[in-house]
């Protein structure tokens, strides 16, 4: 009995502190969206908030980087992001080239700094 509970415990945690706190936002969004139709002016504001939230997440992940990425100097991370955006615009807005450019600069730069 105890062995079974021990094995199931991580899955219970996954649901309680992983799935539910994350899914609550999708559920709230589901109910908030019920009364809205495609042409609603509210949606312009909601999309602007979604974009700004995402931008804040991007900036935070870059500046206050998690795990192994924190080992790469902040200046190099910012230069890599800048090069990625430049690559995107230089190639008529290719997301693929943008991401690839940023990655090459980040990994290449870190390699040259022999991190």
């Amino acid at each position, binding site marked *: 009995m105890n062995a079974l509970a021990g094995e199931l415990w*991580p899955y219970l*945690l*996954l*649901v*309680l*502190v*992983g799935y*539910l*706190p*994350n*899914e*609550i*936002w*999708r559920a*709230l*969004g*589901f109910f908030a*969206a019920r009364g*809205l139709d*495609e*042409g*609603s002016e509210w*949606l*312009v*504001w*909601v*999309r*602007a*908030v*979604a*974009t*700004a*939230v*995402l*931008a*804040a*997440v*991007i*900036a*935070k*992940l870059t*500046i206050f*980087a*998690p*795990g*192994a*990425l924190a*080992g790469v100097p902040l200046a190099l*991370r910012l230069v890599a992001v800048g090069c*990625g*955006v430049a690559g*995107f615009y230089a190639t008529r*807005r290719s*997301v*693929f080239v*943008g*991401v690839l450019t*940023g*990655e090459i600069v*980040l990994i290449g730069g870190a390699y040259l700094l022999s991190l």
Partner: protein
Amino acid sequence: MRSIMRPMSVARVALNAVATHGGAMPGGATNFETSGAAFLGGVRAAWLSVFAYVLFGTYIGIGALAHDFNFSLLWATLSTVLVWAGPAQVILISALGAGSSLIEVAVAVGLSGVRLLPMVVSLLPRLKAPQTRARDLVLPAHFTAVSMWVESMRLIPGIAVERRVAFVNGIASGYMMSALLATVIGYYLAARLPNLLTAGLLFLTPMSFLVSITRNSVLLVDRLALVLGLVIGPALAYAAVDLDILWAGIAGGTLAYVGHRIREALR
């Protein structure tokens, strides 16, 4: 509705959709014969987009992280299906693995998920046809994540409205297949991943989010919101304000919306 899209971008999206899937309807929307065809069209669109590969790289990192913190492979793949949000999974695995208190983990995961709310609210109304039932929107709501939201918002203007639910479910399923395969591969590769590569995999999320959201921001209001979020977000985080991401989103989004209204009024 069309007034908030530039005519150019509508035409370009419709053109892309036609070029990819063939068979345009008179309204410029792609006409899938059945929901099944629309679903497969979505899977195809997912695999043709850079996100399928970005997710693959990101989830190699997440699979490896789950292995390093001694979670089982089943647990790792279930977390991908149930949580379906990269940053939340990174927090969940590293915080649980590091032995943080359960309340702390739940709060950190919950804060990272705030972005999903406005995404779901802005996506679901665009999927509704007259015959769409509320329960048809449950799956798209769960599937909503940055990758799926960005591609869906870009492509659905070119999709007939009664096929949009199936189409976006296809996009998300295509992405999830890529992420699940990568979770398994990353789990087995874990010990063999060099540090430099792990850093590169973690960098995929902010880099791809930034470039794709820049591509999607055609209108003034979206561009303003993007720039304001990039500036306000780190400023609040640096000042150690609670709920920094949430406040940055509300402040940045509202200021951008005010800017948009002022410009409309001056026209």
